[in-house]
């Protein structure tokens, strides 16, 4: 399953909720959720931890827009909108954690 997160995990619980119920699969960070993909925040350690069980992707145009493209955490896969489409197509189903 592809989980799509769109809120900053520094101020919202969507990513936490998703990780609470998810044992495997893929997560795509879009819109304000891309802050989770940037090095240096208090979440970085946690992101490294969860990468052991789920694969994390980030929508680069959203990260670039927010001025953090050069801080992408190693191991998080950058995708463009075409890559977003590919991820949805490749997963059996998807869920937006609104």
């Amino acid at each position, binding site marked *: 399953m592809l989980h*799509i997160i*769109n809120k900053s995990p520094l101020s919202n619980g969507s990513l936490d909720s998703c990780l609470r119920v998810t044992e495997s699969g893929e997560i795509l960070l*879009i*819109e*304000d959720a891309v802050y989770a993909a940037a090095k240096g925040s208090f979440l970085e350690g946690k992101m490294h931890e969860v990468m052991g069980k789920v694969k994390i992707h980030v929508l680069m*145009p959203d990260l670039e827009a927010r001025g953090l493209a050069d801080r992408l955490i190693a191991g998080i896969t950058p995708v*463009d*909108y*075409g890559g*977003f*489409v*590919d991820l*949805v*197509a490749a997963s059996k*189903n*998807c869920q*937006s954690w*609104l």
Partner: protein
Amino acid sequence: MKFGIVVNEGPYQHQSSDSAYLFCKAAIEKGHEVWRVFFYHDGVNNATRLTEPPQDDRNIVNRWSKLAEEHGVDLVVCVAAALRRGIRDENLAPGFRISGLGQLVESGIQTDRLVVFGD
């Protein structure tokens, strides 16, 4: 692959309409079909032709209309949500149509993937 899209937020206030549009565009460029975009909640505000953004900004409503015209994407606005918010046939932008929630359920049934964009 056949995609269905749901947009839950209005234009300019939230990024979801932009994200949904860019997703649709990328899907079409890859040879997929965007079968229907369903506008629900404040998303119905994407359908008003009275929108007039500043000249240096993107025109979100026209962008959707163009997608419908060029690629035959069915743009459906939920009737109950639309009436609640003052969106009616007389202020509907080209390419949009007002219909029932059944059209959203039908999207889930008829498409291979349904992707929701919202707040």
